[in-house]
C-alpha cells in the first residue's frame, strides 16, 4: 500500500532506528493516561474511524474534511527523524507522512494568516485521561507560519510503513523534529490559521517552563532539569543534545535575531 511504499527522503537521518516496540510502548499522550505505558495499554479507547479534520480561519478554502480527502497517497514520504522529548529522552522514528505546507497551500492561506493552531481530539467519554483535568483539554499547539511551511514540518499518518498506532497519535499528527516532542501534537481534529499568536496547552499551564517556540536547545535548561544531554532510548548512557535537535542548518535562519533564551 501507499504507506509501506512511500519513498524515502533526503531529509531523513541515517542513524539507527529506535525499535517499533519502544516507539509504541513509551509514550506521552496524556489523553490516554500520564504514565509512559498508559497510551499503549489504553490505545483502544481512541476511536479513529471516521475522522474529520476541520481546516478553518484565515484560508480561502475552509471546511470539514474526511481524512481520506486530506491524505494524498502520492504526497506520502518516509521521513526518518530524531525526536527529542522535553523530558530529556530521544528516539529515531521512521514516520510516513506529507509536508504540512502542501495541505496548507491547497487551502490557500490569506495574507492575515500568521500562525497555525492545532487542536487534538476531545472525547472524555472514551479517553480516560481527559476525565481528569490534568491539562485544560483539548490539547492545543501552534506554529508560526514560516515554521509550519518549512519542508521539515510533517503531518504523519504512519510509522515503520504502517498506519499510525493509536498511542502515537492516530490517525494524523504533527511532527516538528527541531522542537521538543510536545509541540508535535497528536490526533489532530482542527487546523486553524489566524493572525494572533496562540497559547499552547503546556504554555498555558506553565509558561516559565514551556515556551511557545520550544526549540530543542542544549544551552537553555528547563527550570527543573538540564537539557544539555539526553538518553537515546535503546542506548546506554547519555549523549549530548544538539542545537535544534541537529536540524540547525535547516532551521536556524527562522530564528535569526531572536534571543533564544527569552523566546525559548
Amino acid at each position, binding site marked *: 500500500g501507499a504507506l509501506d511504499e512511500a519513498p524515502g527522503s533526503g531529509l531523513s537521518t541515517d542513524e539507527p532506528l529506535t525499535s517499533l516496540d519502544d516507539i509504541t510502548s*513509551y509514550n506521552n499522550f496524556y489523553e490516554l493516561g500520564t504514565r509512559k505505558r498508559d497510551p499503549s495499554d489504553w490505545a483502544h479507547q481512541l476511536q479513529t474511524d471516521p475522522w474529520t479534520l476541520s481546516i478553518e480561519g484565515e484560508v480561502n478554502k475552509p471546511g470539514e474534511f474526511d481524512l481520506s480527502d486530506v491524505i494524498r497517497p502520492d504526497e506520502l514520504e518516509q521521513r526518518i527523524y530524531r525526536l527529542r522529548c522535553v523530558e530529556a529522552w530521544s528516539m529515531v522514528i521512521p514516520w510516513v507522512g506529507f509536508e504540512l505546507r502542501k495541505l496548507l497551500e491547497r487551502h490557500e492561506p490569506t495574507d492575515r494568516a500568521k500562525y497555525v493552531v492545532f487542536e487534538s481530539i476531545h472525547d472524555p467519554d472514551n479517553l480516560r485521561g481527559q476525565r481528569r483535568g490534568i491539562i485544560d483539554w483539548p490539547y492545543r499547539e501552534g506554529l508560526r507560519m514560516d515554521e509550519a511551511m518549512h519542508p521539515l514540518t510533517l503531518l504523519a499518518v504512519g510509522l515503520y510503513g504502517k498506519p499510525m498506532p493509536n498511542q502515537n497519535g492516530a490517525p494524523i499528527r504533527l511532527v516538528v523534529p527541531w522542537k521538543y516532542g510536545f509541540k508535535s501534537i497528536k490526533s489532530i481534529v482542527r487546523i486553524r490559521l489566524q493572525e494572533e499568536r496562540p497559547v499552547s496547552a503546556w504554555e498555558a499551564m506553565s509558561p516559565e517552563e514551556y515556551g511557545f517556540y520550544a526549540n530543542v536547545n542544549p544551552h537553555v535548561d528547563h527550570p527543573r*532539569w538540564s537539557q544539555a544531554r539526553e538518553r537515546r532510548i535503546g542506548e546506554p548512557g*547519555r549523549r549530548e543534545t544538539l542545537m535544534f535537535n541537529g536540524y540547525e542548518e535547516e532551521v536556524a535562519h527562522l530564528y535569526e535575531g531572536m534571543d533564544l533564551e527569552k523566546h525559548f
Partner: protein
Amino acid sequence: MDHQKTAIHGFRVLVLVACATPALWLVWAWFNAGLGANPAEAVVHFTGRFGLALLLATIALGPAFRLSGWVGFMVARRQLGLWAFFWLVAHALAWMGLDQYWDWPWIWQDLWGLEYIRYGLAGLVLLVPLALTSFRAAQQALGRSRWQWLHRLVYLSAALGVVHFWILTRADYRDVVIYGAVLAALAAFRLGCAVVDRR
C-alpha cells in the same frame, strides 16, 4: 508468650520478604528486558518511590504501636528503617550509575545546579546518622532522649523526599500528593500524641 514471639518473628520475616523481593525482581527484570523502553529510568523511579514508601511505613510503625499496643511494630522498626535507607541509597546509586553513567563532572554539575537533586540528597544525608545510631549500643551511648531527638529527623528527611518528588512531577500530581498526605497525617498524629502526653 510463645505465641507472641511467633507473631513478632513472623512480622519480621514479612518485612524481610516485602523489602528484599522487589530488589530480586528488579535485578531479574533488568537482565531480562522487563523494565520497558527506558530501564534506567524505571530503576531510578522504582527505587525512589519504594524507598520513600518504606520510610513512611517506618514512621507509621510508631502510631501503629500506639493504636494497637502490639510490640511487634516497635521490634521491626529498626529493620524497616534500614531497608528504607538501603532503597534510597540504591536510588542515589542508580541515578549516578544508570542514569548519569558515572559521569562525575555531570553528576557534580547536577548536584549543584538542580534544586530537586539538592533536596533529595539532603534527605538522604540526613538518614545517615539515623542509620549509624540505629543499633542498641549507639542508643545507649546517646541516651534515650538525645537518641529520640536525633531520630525525629526522619520526618524532615521524608519531607525533603516529598519535595524532591514534587519538583520532579510533571502535570499529574496525584502520586506525590498521596505521599505528602500520608506524611502530613503521620506528623499530625505524632504532634497530637505529644500534646496528649504533656497533659
